[in-house]
């Protein structure tokens, strides 16, 4: 797909989000969360390019969300909280990454899972600091020093999420076309060759890992400010699984896939939860099954087919 078509489709998706949000006010919240998750899934996509699946990236989402929750009473501005959350997640990503990029495939996935569950336990058990499963309320952030009413606050967050989503998608597109990005799939197909060309496969994977952690951090900061309440559940393994689920649903073939997947995921969840109460997980499961069986390229792959090109 050429970049112009992709940019056009991205603009179309962004307009659809804005149109849906302005016609259906309660969707503002849902779509903000969807875009935030999409940013984290974009990070998962980078690792998927290297054939590595992290089942623990909710660690970085939760780490950043709690960072925001702790700092919000003191540094109440979104323009400070967002970059700080992302930065902290990135630093944690570097520390964790130095360890996990030594492993591949199931070991990589499970190590990520294990570390995220350690953090989850800490959030849950260190009650005096984290308030355990009760979680922490996050005060409404200001935007560039301005306090907004509820409507304005929600819209400000939606637009911030949208802007960040676009920024991250554009960055990821450049990154994937660069030698570093291209080498990710080299790790999947012929890692030894990279070493014999003098390139450190670990460093290639570590770079992608840190970027994915920063993206998960942005996601976590947005989620904390949007839901205004953080709980350990943000870092639970099901939350990590959800990110992988969305990555498969949306399709790993392009940078729009994660956002398409996240939006569909959240909408299906909201509508299915409203209409079928406890059966929404069943519905999501069936949707994923259908995607895996009949549309390996995910929703983005379907879009590509509709556009007349091979996924």
């Amino acid at each position, binding site marked *: 797909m050429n970049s112009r078509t992709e940019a056009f489709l991205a603009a179309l998706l962004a307009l659809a989000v804005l149109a849906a949000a302005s016609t259906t006010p309660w969707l503002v919240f849902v779509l903000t969360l969807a875009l935030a998750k999409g940013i984290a899934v974009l990070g998962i996509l980078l690792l998927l390019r290297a054939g590595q699946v992290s089942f623990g990236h909710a660690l970085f989402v939760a780490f950043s969300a709690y960072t925001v929750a702790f700092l919000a009473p003191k540094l109440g501005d979104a323009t400070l909280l967002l970059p700080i959350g992302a930065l902290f997640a990135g630093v944690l990503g570097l520390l964790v990454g130095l360890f996990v990029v030594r492993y591949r495939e199931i070991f990589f996935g499970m190590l990520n899972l294990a570390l995220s569950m350690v953090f989850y336990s800490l959030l849950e058990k260190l009650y005096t600091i984290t308030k355990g499963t009760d979680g922490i309320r996050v005060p409404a952030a200001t935007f560039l020093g301005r306090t907004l009413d509820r409507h304005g606050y929600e819209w400000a967050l939606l637009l911030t999420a949208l802007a960040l989503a676009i920024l991250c998608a554009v960055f990821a597109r*450049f*990154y994937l*076309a*660069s*030698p*570093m*990005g*291209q*080498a990710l*799939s*080299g790790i*999947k*197909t*012929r890692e*030894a*060759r*990279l*070493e*014999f*060309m*003098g*390139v*450190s496969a670990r*460093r*290639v994977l570590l*770079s992608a890992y840190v970027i994915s952690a920063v993206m998960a951090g942005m996601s976590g900061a947005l989620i904390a400010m949007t839901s205004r309440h953080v709980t350990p559940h943000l870092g639970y393994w099901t939350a990590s699984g959800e990110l992988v689920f969305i990555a498969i649903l949306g399709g790993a073939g392009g940078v729009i896939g994660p956002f398409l997947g996240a939006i569909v995921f959240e909408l299906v969840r909201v509508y299915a939860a409203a209409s079928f109460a406890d059966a929404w997980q069943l519905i999501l499961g069936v949707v994923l099954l259908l995607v895996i069986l009949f549309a390996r390229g995910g929703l983005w792959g379907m879009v590509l087919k509709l556009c007349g090109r091979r996924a």
Partner: protein
Amino acid sequence: MSEVLLSAKGLRLAFGGVKAADGIDLDVLDGEFLAIIGPNGAGKTTFINMTTGYLKPQGGEIHFAGERILGLSPRAIVRRGIARSFQLPQLFTEHTVLENAAMAVAAREGFFSALKPLLRPAWREEAMDLLARFGLTAIAGTRADALNEGARKLADIAMAVALRPRLLLMDEPTSGVAASEKMEIVERLATVLRDARVTAVFVEHDMEVVGRFADRVAVWSQGRIAALGQPERILNDPDVRREVIGIETGGRHAAA
């Protein structure tokens, strides 16, 4: 062509009871094409693996251009100017031939640039030029997993050459290549390497190829170098013919 580029002294390595290297002494001279022949299991590939840092010998020394390289990682050794190609071509199978070549150019030029595309004009041009020298222009856009064996071998070697090594180690560059295209491929390869002034060590089973392209031949046998010298002498040596060539090829292509 007299300066020693690679010097191996007393290399020893055993896998269990099998001596893959049992006191290998070999000097590779700058600019020469040195062929390594010998039966399977004689330790030919082990020598390449030790020289490129993939296997660590249990004893001995390796110097390259005067510098000790024993114990260095494969990456560090590549950066010092030793590249290798593989018996089973190691291509990035999800990438096109052009992208594979460009990856190698990128590996040499500076890989860690996150925002400029791999196929930036300068690197694309260099990769295309490289492919042209190897006669691979027509398949530049073909995915590596869709190539025939001859093209995969050449692409594999092209990637090693893109690193601009001083020494290139090739593990059976013609194995699996159809007999009809073998000589053409080797001819092309020799031209590229001579033009680029690359010293080459290659493991080879085809004595016609050896006779035609090697400046010197080293005969490997049970982890030792049984004979070393000019191809005319080595390939006509009765012992070598019986021990190595006879076993390997049943007497075909006995001499050049």
